[in-house]
């Protein structure tokens, strides 16, 4: 019965979304505030009904109601509570419901908090958000309904893939979906700007907080996914340039570009067309990701819930939504104002350069992901595009971008002095050069890539700090003045500095780990040892362990540091999940400073004398912690920036001030008599 309430609430949410779109559209056409209020009310109601619907699905998973097809396929009564709850969004149907929840949730936020937007802009945005909701809700209701019952319920469920039974992977999808779908608000605002013929500074101020929120959530989601791959797949890889990873990375790249171009539009009124283009692109890439991950057109290590027939429907939604959006763009954007001028050396140019490189990086990832399909379709030849391609194309683009990055924030708007900016960076340059020399001298084996990467990381971190030091006049003004300035720095500045420095931290970790990772695999009997990067790992014993829904062999290994002291006790496991008959590996990670000693227990074999032996692999992943810490800092930067007073409070009031009831600017809004 409760499940039927959920199904009913889902349908009701669809109907409310139709009402939302209809009322808000009419409100815009007739300029009727009452209808606008109806549309906003419907948006909020659509979210609450869908929240009820989602709660009932979680309930069905928690009580293991196997008469619901989705629960029977994806859950098991012996699973721990956390993973039964997480199972609600572990399947195709459940994940689409979560997508819809995020869509309506953002619609409700837009309706509830969008008070500062002009009436026309807001009505169109709410209507568009409703339309996006209709597409995915209708898809969920008719093609992917998680509430379908089975006429002949099984006694036990088929369980969630044990690899997915992991805390990071329970949190990964919610963050990712908030990020993907957060970009839908930006899409709706872009449509509204096109319809109203207005994309000025006030509009850009509206775009930024939504983009920041989505970007921060995406950053956390992608990092959680990478972290999960790192410790769960059992060989320490964290990024594979896999189509599914690329699918989440492309919206992130676009959102990053949008954050920067929106600053130009907000501060200087320039590039409105490009900012709108990116705003449309962000959600388009989100939908492309949803399609790629679920349709099975591309082979991937972690494509899940693949279903080609539904893939066609998702492709249709993608094509229609993006097609209409970009058609509107092609029609309306050319008439929009271009905004202020700027000199070749200026903050604007730096941000445009950032956007060019990010756009090229996105294009590279997109083409690399889709090229096998394109060649297959055109020439019937199968080729592969794997990590070596992306390392050769994406990495150089990023290298150039990151090399230029510290100079950007030091340049003035409109016209800047490049020499002065570079002069300020001499400390960063010196430290980076020293890091490179030290690396070449000390690190074994010698690596030019490693030295360059390390210098780049230092350059980014110190370069970002330089900007703050400049603004507080560190070492140049009296202490009191410096502290006063430090306290007066807006959170937006802190956010930017954290994000840029976080990128540097990531670069340090990624380069160090990639370049100086060490690996040793040995077949060990009890009492034998292996050596990796100076660490000695001795196998003490292997004992059976009984988990809630698995049986495991747990090894106990004693790890000694290069100086002979005990580093840690490592207890990797090899688990057998009886429900599905799968084997998984739980690695043991000893954190040593910023580095990881990573121990994996492999299969049991029989040794020469009939005694059991185990394949044990030890990895030394130097500075691996920074790979995940860096993006963490970046996301924190996003959140700090989001908490900036100017974005939180002032947006509404000032935006309203900036748009007094004067004559509408050209081009005329749609539907307005000339």
């Amino acid at each position, binding site marked *: 019965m409760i499940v039927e309430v959920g199904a009913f609430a889902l349908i009701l949410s669809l109907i409310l979304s139709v009402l939302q779109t209809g009322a808000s559209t009419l409100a815009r056409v007739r300029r009727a505030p009452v209808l606008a209020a109806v549309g906003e009310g419907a948006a909020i109601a659509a979210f609450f009904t869908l929240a009820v619907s989602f709660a009932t699905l979680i309930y069905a998973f928690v009580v293991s109601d196997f008469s619901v097809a989705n629960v029977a396929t994806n859950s098991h009564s012996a699973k721990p509570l956390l993973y039964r709850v997480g199972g609600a969004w572990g399947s195709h149907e459940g994940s689409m419901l979560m997508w819809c929840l995020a869509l309506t949730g953002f619609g409700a936020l837009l309706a509830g908090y969008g008070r500062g937007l002009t009436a026309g802009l807001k009505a169109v945005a709410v209507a568009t958000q409703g339309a996006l909701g209709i597409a995915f809700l209708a898809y969920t209701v008719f093609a992917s309904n998680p509430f379908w019952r089975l006429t002949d319920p099984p006694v036990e469920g088929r369980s969630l893939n044990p690899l997915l039974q992991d805390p990071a992977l329970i949190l990964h999808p919610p963050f990712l979906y908030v990020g993907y779908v957060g970009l839908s608000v930006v899409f709706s605002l872009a449509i509204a700007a096109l319809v109203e013929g207005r994309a000025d500074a006030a509009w850009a101020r509206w775009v930024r907080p939504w983009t920041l929120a989505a970007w921060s959530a995406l950053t956390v989601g992608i990092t959680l996914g990478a972290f999960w791959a790192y410790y769960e797949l059992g060989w320490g890889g964290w990024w*594979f340039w896999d189509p599914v990873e690329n699918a989440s990375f492309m919206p992130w790249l676009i959102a990053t570009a949008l954050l920067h171009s929106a600053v130009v539009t907000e501060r200087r009124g320039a590039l409105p067309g490009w900012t709108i283009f990116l705003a449309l692109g962000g959600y388009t890439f989100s939908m492309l990701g949803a399609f790629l991950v679920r349709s099975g057109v591309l082979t991937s290590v*972690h494509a899940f819930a693949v279903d080609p027939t539904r893939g066609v429907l998702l492709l249709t939604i993608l094509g229609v939504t993006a097609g209409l959006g970009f058609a509107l763009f092609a029609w309306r954007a050319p008439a929009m104002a271009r905004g202020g001028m700027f000199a070749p050396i200026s903050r604007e140019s730096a941000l445009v350069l950032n956007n*060019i490189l990010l756009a090229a990086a996105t294009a*590279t990832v997109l083409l690399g992901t889709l090229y096998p399909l394109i060649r297959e379709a055109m020439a019937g030849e199968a080729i592969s595009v794997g990590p070596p391609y992306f390392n050769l194309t994406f990495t150089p683009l990023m290298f150039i971008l990151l090399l230029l990055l510290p100079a950007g924030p030091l340049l003035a708007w409109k016209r800047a002095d490049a020499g002065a900016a570079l002069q300020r960076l001499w400390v960063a340059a010196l430290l980076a050069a020293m890091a490179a020399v030290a690396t070449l001298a000390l690190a074994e084996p010698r690596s030019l890539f490693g030295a360059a990467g390390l210098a780049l990381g230092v350059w980014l971190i110190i370069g970002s700090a330089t900007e703050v030091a400049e603004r507080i006049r560190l070492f140049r003004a009296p202490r009191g003045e410096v502290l006063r300035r430090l306290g007066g720095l807006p959170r937006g500045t802190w956010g930017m500095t954290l994000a840029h420095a976080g990128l540097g931290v990531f670069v340090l970790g990624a380069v160090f780990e990639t370049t100086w990772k060490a690996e040793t*695999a040995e077949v060990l009997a009890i009492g034998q040892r292996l050596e990796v990067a100076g660490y000695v790992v001795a196998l003490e014993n292997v004992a059976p362990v009984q988990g809630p829904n698995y049986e495991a062999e747990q090894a106990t290994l004693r790890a000694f540091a290069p100086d002979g002291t005990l580093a840690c006790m490592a207890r990797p496991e090899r688990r057998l999940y009886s429900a599905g008959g799968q084997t998984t590996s739980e690695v043991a990670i000893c954190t040593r400073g910023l580095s990881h000693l990573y121990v994996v227990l492999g299969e049991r074999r029989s040794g020469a004398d009939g005694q059991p032996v185990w394949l044990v692999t030890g990895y030394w992943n130097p500075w691996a912690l920074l790979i995940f810490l860096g993006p963490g800092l970046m996301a924190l930067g996003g959140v700090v920036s989001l908490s900036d007073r100017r974005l939180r409070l002032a947006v509404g009031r000032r935006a309203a001030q900036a748009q007094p009831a004067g004559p509408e600017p050209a081009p005329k809004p749609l539907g307005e008599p000339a």
Partner: protein
Amino acid sequence: MTALGRWLVVACAVLCLGAASDPGERLADPAQEARARALFKEVRCLVCQNESIDASNAELAQDLRAIVRQEVAQGRSDVEVRRFLTDRYGEYVLLKPRFSWANAALWLFPLVVVLAGAGLLIGRWRTPEAESDLTGAETDALARLADDPGTDRGSAS
């Protein structure tokens, strides 16, 4: 097979671990072994979803590793090993697409985007400022926004 089922086959392929570095498979010469390992990362495990033979423990990956190691041990160059593999399995086996006319778009596209972007930027520097179509009141309001001391974001002062 259900979608999840397919996932699981892959997962198992990923999880049967430590294969590429298995002491039983290794070459005696460390230099040759290192070269073989580098080559593994460029070779696709054909039956897997999207993995190199370095990461996979599928039976085919094991066979391919044996072939590559054998070729390396016989003193073949990287180019010769790659050709040997593509002759047998087609271009699909290489994770790094060849530089060829058919792949020209793939390799050159990033450069084209950068050049196009740079061209647009230079074009923008050269065209004179368009006339503002804001009303006087709007321009004033925007100026107020920009002059707000709280909104001064890092213009180098």
